[in-house]
């Protein structure tokens, strides 16, 4: 489940305290309302999460033998080049999932902030579509596009750029950026729509005031647009970075981490270690580190968003 967005923007804020209740009801009646949701959440999300942390201190296949190994699995992640590279790959993917779409989005949103566009619904639908459809389908589609004899290479050859054609997903240098570009395709429309909606909410007088102060386009961008888009940027960053750090489906279908280990990412390793080589503890440790990284990244973004206020 993604959409961690809102948690950071709205959820971080303390509620003004409603210290009230319906007449004649005990305070504890609130428990009844949250109980079903809380129980299912506790049983199927939170408890397994704690259990996973526990398992990460063991080694074994989860059935017959489990041996306490302390922090060994974590030491492995820090020292084993393959495991470590998974995290580097995930961070590299952030460039493609987050930074490039946000750069594109900012550029276009700035360029468009003064135009009045009709038919926003159509554009939004088109821009959101890649984000809505199943990642597995996206992976299948792009696997075809990037195939050695796929449309991308045919296109390159047709326009005389045949020397650029290559087996994208089988190339040690290009496989990860290729997967990354798919992420850019998924995310850029979403980010653009988000930033467009935001930029249109910035009061025009702010721009006028800036202009009266003699601000050039760059100053205008820095002083008005960027601060005005603070919330949208936080949402965009949280959504896209979380997606970049997870990213199981796309890797599973498109490359399985290959060629070699060139596109291995943490979520794929969790699956592979748990369900293919029966290293339950190692998989659990990998998953735990992944959660910590995701939470840390989100907190950082949230803090940066607040700090800019």
């Amino acid at each position: 489940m993604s959409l961690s967005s809102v948690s950071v923007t709205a959820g971080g804020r303390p509620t003004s305290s409603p210290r009230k209740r319906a007449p004649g009801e005990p305070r504890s009646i609130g428990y009844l309302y949250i109980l079903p949701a809380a129980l299912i959440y506790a049983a199927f999300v939170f408890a397994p999460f704690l259990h996973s942390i526990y398992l990460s201190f063991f080694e074994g296949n989860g059935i017959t033998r489990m041996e306490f190994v302390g922090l060994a699995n974590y030491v492995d992640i820090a020292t084993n080049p393959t495991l470590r590279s998974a995290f580097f790959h995930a961070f590299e993917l952030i460039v493609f999932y987050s930074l490039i779409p946000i750069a594109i989005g900012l550029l276009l949103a700035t360029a468009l902030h003064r135009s009045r566009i009709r038919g926003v619904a159509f554009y939004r639908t088109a821009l959101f579509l890649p984000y809505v459809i199943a990642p597995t389908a996206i992976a299948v589609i792009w696997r075809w596009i990037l195939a050695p004899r796929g449309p991308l290479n045919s296109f390159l050859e047709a326009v005389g750029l045949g020397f650029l054609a290559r087996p994208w997903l089988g190339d040690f240098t290009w496989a990860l950026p290729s997967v990354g570009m798919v992420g850019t395709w998924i995310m850029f429309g979403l980010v653009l729509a988000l930033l467009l909606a935001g930029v249109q909410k910035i009061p025009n007088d702010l721009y006028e005031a800036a202009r009266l102060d003699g601000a050039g386009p760059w100053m205008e961008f820095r002083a008005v647009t960027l601060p005005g888009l603070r919330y949208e940027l936080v949402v965009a960053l949280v959504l896209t970075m979380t997606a970049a750090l997870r990213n199981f489906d796309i890797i599973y279908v498109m490359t399985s981490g290959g060629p070699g280990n060139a596109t291995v990412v943490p979520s794929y390793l969790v699956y592979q270690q748990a369900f293919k080589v029966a290293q339950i503890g190692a998989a659990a440790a990998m998953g735990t580190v992944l959660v910590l990284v995701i939470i840390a990244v989100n907190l950082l973004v949230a803090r940066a968003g607040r700090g800019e206020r």
Partner: protein
Amino acid sequence: MISRRDTIAGYLLLTLAALISLGPLIGVVVLALGEPGRVGIKLDITQATNFGNFADVWEKGDFGPAILTSFIITTTVVVVSVILSVPAGYAFALMDFPGRTAIFALLVLGILMPLEAMIVPLFLDMRRFNLDNNYWSVILPQIGFSVAFGAFWMRAFFVQSARSLMEAAWIDGANSWRTLTRVLMPLARPQMLTLAVLFFVWNWNDFLLPLVMLSGSDLQTAPMALVTFEGARRTDFAYVGAASLITIAPVVIVFILLQRSFTRGILAGSVKE
């Protein structure tokens, strides 16, 4: 202020962006209608007339049962999660009980947590209790994740817009349940719809959980069927294209019909208070 030139440039840029978004999908439609077999790799719009590909794929890839399974799982998750999220969000927003903040914080954590972090014990535990390889093994964790976001989302709505109404209802002597069902829920309908659309999209597309939970059974969801089909018939390009379209069709239809609700959900995070 708004110059004509800016507006034209705006349309051009947006159209270009929309084309980039839609391009690969249009390509797949042409691919899917192409001649079955390896020739399908050449995109030729004049040959894109093989509507029979969809029927073939439906049959060969067992998409009928897969789509049905996905529907059973997803609609159950959507309905139950919305029903559970509303009262939870209501209580978190408007009621005062000991531990409220702490419980809410734990719940919100679930929005951030990736499934990968608990898939291993989830699988082990499900198997231990013999819950794996059936619908529930997917439905229950999906509800767990969904209500985390749902409670959060409904709380945000109730906090913003329901306080005074609720107090009025209390003064009229309504109890908390009556207040929720008679006064607040009619108001919250758009939010609930948004929630339903988001839940539908997320859970329909989910792949890792069913992959792990259903792998020992005959059950497979639509994304699983797609991946299986693609693996087995990778070289039948037209078929693979058709299979992709079959898999995404329900979500695309729901999305287009309820586009407003969906975008509101995504954009709401940025609504300034």
